[in-house]
């Protein structure tokens, strides 16, 4: 069945034009132009047609914590958020550190409404002591390795992982990406929010910004030593942004992401003592938020990621120290970035779509220009629609959004995954 997206304005990495898009029944873009017709039409008037979004950082909890989320529900939320591809994190149970679990995640992913791109752990069971079978995993198509949830503490092993990864470029066909959760646990353990004025007042033990910054500093030094492509996950401090800026200026192969929550919330939110605001790295200060925005504006930070981290309601009904860190992100990312980054729409779309697609190694099929022949992974966004966030209304099995009740501007109207309209008029079709 062919579908025509009518009346919208196309924005992709080639620029901007007002044309209709016809999607063929082969899942590819059939035509871009005027006077197109198809078996069905989707109204795109007042909207922008963009390549689908790519999230570099999603916890879909399967296998292991299906009470909080499944790949099916996580992908549905992704589709509602305009995403057509999600990079899943390996802190599953069992850990995604071998080909068997990667294949399980992929198999589940094929039935979902997004392309699921499993990342794998750098070390066995994310313990930080022995290297995971990276060669085997690369041969199975894994291109991103991370121990996300913790950083790899041992600098010697991190050096070896970096060196080893550079030898796998030929087997993968592109450089392997090592995605680091930067946190020196010796400095952060026992802390549950950002250490500063608010933690001092609230009596919640804090994690200093330096626990992140020391690992950013270390890994930049090790990238200089090894040349391994390192991607800094969820940068949260001003000094981290400055160091990555310097590393890029020095020509090092580093990339970085920032989450929508580090772009929009500060540690003051923890004054409610509601663990819905507990996240790692923690919400930081106004100055850090501003530095993240500056880093997005000047290209230091390459991508917006969600760090979508569902937790069942009872898990957050615990004291602040005992509740697990993390918050939902997939369904709010577009609107928050548009509303609060200070960037214009084409820049927002770049940060959500084609720039992360390049890091994930899927630029051939996600984030690609909207041209005949390219895979039809698309979203249609209404930059003016105002809506109210409701965790209960989200597709996620969990409802731990920190934006509950907040009014946001900008909403995903339609999403097409390989030509299939998986979201139509803001509703998931399956």
């Amino acid at each position: 069945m062919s579908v025509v997206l009518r009346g919208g304005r196309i924005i992709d990495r080639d620029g901007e034009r007002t044309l209709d898009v016809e999607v063929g029944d082969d899942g590819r873009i059939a035509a871009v132009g005027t006077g197109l017709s198809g078996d069905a039409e989707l109204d795109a008037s007042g909207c922008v047609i963009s390549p689908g979004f790519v999230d570099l950082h999603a916890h879909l909890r399967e296998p292991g914590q299906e009470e909080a989320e499944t790949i099916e529900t996580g992908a549905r939320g992704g589709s509602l958020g305009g995403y057509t591809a999600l990079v899943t994190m390996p802190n599953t149970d069992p850990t995604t550190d071998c080909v068997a679990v990667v294949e399980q995640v992929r198999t589940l992913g094929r039935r979902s409404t997004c392309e699921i791109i499993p990342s794998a752990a750098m070390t066995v069971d994310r313990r930080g002591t022995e290297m995971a079978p990276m060669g085997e995993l690369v041969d199975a198509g894994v291109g991103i390795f991370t121990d996300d949830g913790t950083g790899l503490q041992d600098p010697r092993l991190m050096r070896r992982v970096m060196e080893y990864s550079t030898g796998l470029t030929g087997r993968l066909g592109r450089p392997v990406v090592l995605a680091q959760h930067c946190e020196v646990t010796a400095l952060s353990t026992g802390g549950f929010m950002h250490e500063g004025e608010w933690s001092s007042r609230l009596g919640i033990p804090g994690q200093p910004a330096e626990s992140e910054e020391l690992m950013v500093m270390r890994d930049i030094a090790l990238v200089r030593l090894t040349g391994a492509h390192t991607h800094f996950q969820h940068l949260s401090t001003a000094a981290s942004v400055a160091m990555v800026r310097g590393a890029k200026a020095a020509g090092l192969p580093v990339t970085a992401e920032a989450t929508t929550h580090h772009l929009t919330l500060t540690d003051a939110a923890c004054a409610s003592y509601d663990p819905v605001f507990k996240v790692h790295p923690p919400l930081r200060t106004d100055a850090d938020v501003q530095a993240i925005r500056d880093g997005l504006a000047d290209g230091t930070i390459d991508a917006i990621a969600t760090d979508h981290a569902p937790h069942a309601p009872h898990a957050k009904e615990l004291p602040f120290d005992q509740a697990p860190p993390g918050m939902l992100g997939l369904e709010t990312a577009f609107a928050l970035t548009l509303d609060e980054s200070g960037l214009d729409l084409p820049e927002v779309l770049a940060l959500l779509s084609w720039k992360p697609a390049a890091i994930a190694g899927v630029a051939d099929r996600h984030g690609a220009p909207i041209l005949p022949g390219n895979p039809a992974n698309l979203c249609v966004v209404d930059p003016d629609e105002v809506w109210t966030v409701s965790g209960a209304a989200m597709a996620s099995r969990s409802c731990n959004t920190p934006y509950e009740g907040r009014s946001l501007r900008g909403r995903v109207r339609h999403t097409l995954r390989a030509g299939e309209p998986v979201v139509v008029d803001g509703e998931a079709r399956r």
Partner: protein
Amino acid sequence: MTATLQSPPASGLGRHLLGIDGMSRSDLEEILDLTDTFAEIGRRPIPKVPALRGRTVATAFFENSTRTRMSFETAARRLSADTVAFSAGSSSLSKGESLRDTVEVVASYGADLLVVRHAMAGTAHRVADWTDLSVVNAGDGCHEHPTQALLDCYTLREQRGSLDGMRIAIVGDVRHSRVARSNILAFTALGAEVVLVAPATLLPPAIDGWPVTVFHELDPLLTDLDAVYLLRMQQERITEGLIPSLREYANDFGLSADRVARMRSDALVLHPGPTNRGVEISAEAAADPRSVILDQVVNGVSVRMAVLFRLLGSGQQLVAADIEPVGDDARPEGADR
């Protein structure tokens, strides 16, 4: 937004007592004035009145504290309230039950007021969000311990008539102290000047906006203090790398016999208890006539009676029937189990 220590005062006392933060001078004075009445009851031969007959006070202690629990239970019984006790040792928390489930179960025993003690900051606030009961914070992690601050203020006021113009040093582990946070707010709200005296590692990481001055040495201040408030020092601060040893701490910050001798003749010595003799306070200093540590314990019951009455009683005004001696069924306290 900068985090000063104190939020803007809320309008009067609410349904809960979660912290000194948000309380105005008049809110504090209202409780202290009410405490006078209950202190008088405590001096009666049978220190018991019917003010809260038929009401139930539940204590939910997720962290051990024999003294605070005894103080609240004594206060409740003197007001003729029933008490039910929950402690984490006998709880289901270790069986995967969420805190919210536990609170709902405790509330379902017909309690009217919940006294919550927990090792983590903010837990009493969360509990208050989940229940229709009144909640009294009996200490939440490193955050607040409002009834301790009220009893400390009452003790100082009892000795001096007013806190206005007093210079009070809070000495020791301010970083981990809920007592210090509550007392800084309460002492300054009542007109006192607060100085913090501690090694740099035992101060909160960022206190620029706090209404205090900070010193790292005790000796130069001793002769210029109206009161010294000593905080408990714990052995685990050494393994955490915050101080080298208890011996070094005692040498630099402990209120030794020598130091107490140099204090003014009308100065006061306070400690929230239990004391570590020979660490933050010497036996001589604890026994010095200027020490009001036992007064604090006695006043703790009176203050908690005032708080329970204020939150559960017949409104703000005490009526005669609330505080008349109990009738024929009255027995000495402790015999009514």
